[in-house]
């Protein structure tokens, strides 16, 4: 199984489109946002540079796992690679585990590159805060990996691309990725996993600890997405 996981990681890193959209694109967006807002103002109670550093890191991480799992699983179901793997001694879950492991490894660069750019632009956090933030965002990305697997087993390749894009953009738009949400929008945002994901960063603010409500919400989404992924996987297996 380790050979499969290694190969999954290798091929993802080899894919130029992946590197462009999940690493370069969020970093560029980051520059765009901090310049558009100006460096003195606050966003969601945070300095603009810190706020958008987090939201662009989550933007890149969610993009990496959704495209890395949903689109590939859907394509490989269609091409028959999934069937071919079922003719090997690998257990049935190996394929999905490999996909999640590969995307989990590849979300790290998406997060770290934006962090590096943020640091170079004057975002200042303590060492434990940097580490804690990276760990929180990395662990949070597993929720979206589970969603990606579910979407990959739910739809055919031509349908999955728009589904992923719409889901991704809607969640980002209403989840505070491009602008802080407030008022009634914020009440709905409580049911949006991307919003909860962005909330993980609030512990870096003075006087805040880790947002346990957001953690609990994300854990609930993880359970729901994993259950959906498992059910859709079983349906796909029955259809061969």
């Amino acid at each position, binding site marked *: *199984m380790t*050979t499969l996981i290694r*190969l999954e990681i*290798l091929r993802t890193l080899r894919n130029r489109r992946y590197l462009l959209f999940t690493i370069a694109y969020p970093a560029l967006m980051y520059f765009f946002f901090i310049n558009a807002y100006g460096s003195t103002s606050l966003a969601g109670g945070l300095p603009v540079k810190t706020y958008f550093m987090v939201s662009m890191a989550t933007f890149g991480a969610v993009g990496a796992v959704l495209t890395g799992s949903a689109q590939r699983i859907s394509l490989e179901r269609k*091409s*028959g690679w999934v069937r*071919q793997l079922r*003719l090997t*001694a*690998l257990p049935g879950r190996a394929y999905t585990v490999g996909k999640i492991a590969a995307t989990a490894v590849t979300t790290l660069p998406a997060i770290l590159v934006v962090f590096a750019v943020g640091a170079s632009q004057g975002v200042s956090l303590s060492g434990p805060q940097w580490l804690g933030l990276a760990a929180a965002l990395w662990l949070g990305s597993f929720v979206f990996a589970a969603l990606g697997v579910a979407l990959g087993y739910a739809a055919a390749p031509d349908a999955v691309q728009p589904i992923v894009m719409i889901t991704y953009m809607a969640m980002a738009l209403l989840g505070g990725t491009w602008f802080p949400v407030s008022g009634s929008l914020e009440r709905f945002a409580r049911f949006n996993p991307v919003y909860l994901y962005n909330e993980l960063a609030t512990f870096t603010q003075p006087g805040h600890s880790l947002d346990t409500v957001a953690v609990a919400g994300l854990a609930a989404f993880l359970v729901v997405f994993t259950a959906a992924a498992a059910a859709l996987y079983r349906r796909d297996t029955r259809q061969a």
Partner: protein
Amino acid sequence: MVTEVAAFRGVGKSYGRVRAVDGLDLVLRPGETVALLGPNGAGKSTSLDLLLGLREPDRGSVTLFGGAPRAAIEAGRVGAMLQSGGLMSDVKVRELVRLACDVHPRGRSVTGVLTDAGITELAERRVDKLSGGQEQRVRFALAIAGDNDLIVLDEPTTGMDVGVRQSFWASMRAQADAGRTVLFATHYLEEADSIADRVLVLHRGRLIADGTSAEIKARAGARRIAFELHDADGGFEESVLRTLPGVSSLDVTARVPGTRTVRIRTADADATVAGIYRAGLYPRGLEVTGVGLEQAFLTITGELDREDGGGTGTDSADVAGAEKESVR
């Protein structure tokens, strides 16, 4: 020593109202090279899916080496190349073959597999940059990545040009010579005729013939007799032709006035020809030829279509079309 590699017992599988496999009984024995023939939609791919445990039968049982198909796969006894078996993208051929060798419980060396599949020179190429025929050879490599006892190939030479197909057959034969049981589905009858020592013919989900290629040809009526009868040589009754010994089918056409062309298929050409002269006929341009497996196949499936009263041999026409493709 297990005397049974694979067994289908009363197997049925339907998709909605379509019966893809209908009461299939079949045993594969060790060391056989078996061709599975049938027109498109005959149930070949479904049968192979059932054999490999990719689908569950609605009725009956399918066993591999006396147990569940999945157990045989996990024990590394079966290698398979599916028609619909995709490949991983963004990886090199060597990396993909290494993966297959690694996950196989009785995995072989990567170099050996590349050599046997004839793709050593493709090893550093990206999988997504290969032609259709090259992809087929990589799929074959995945099927022989371990020391399998059974190799299952679904239409392995589709997309290969003639030269490549010849060398692919050599690779297939080498697997059989190593003592492995080989089962391959094909609609290239030439392939079945020249490689298989047992031929199965599947039609509408049922096994309608099972024997050597020679036996199947014999069953279809071994020989064809063609000649012309000229009115100038004297009149005759068509019923005379019908009662000739050994005749299994008769076709008389009269395109040119005064001349009739007679085509007979017979199980005993010697007796039929003797009968023609005994009846006082004067056949001109008499020809006696053996039928190929293709003709035998069309005859057998055609007979069934007529018995069923259904389809007017459209399925058989598909196969004829496929055969033309293979010649091209």
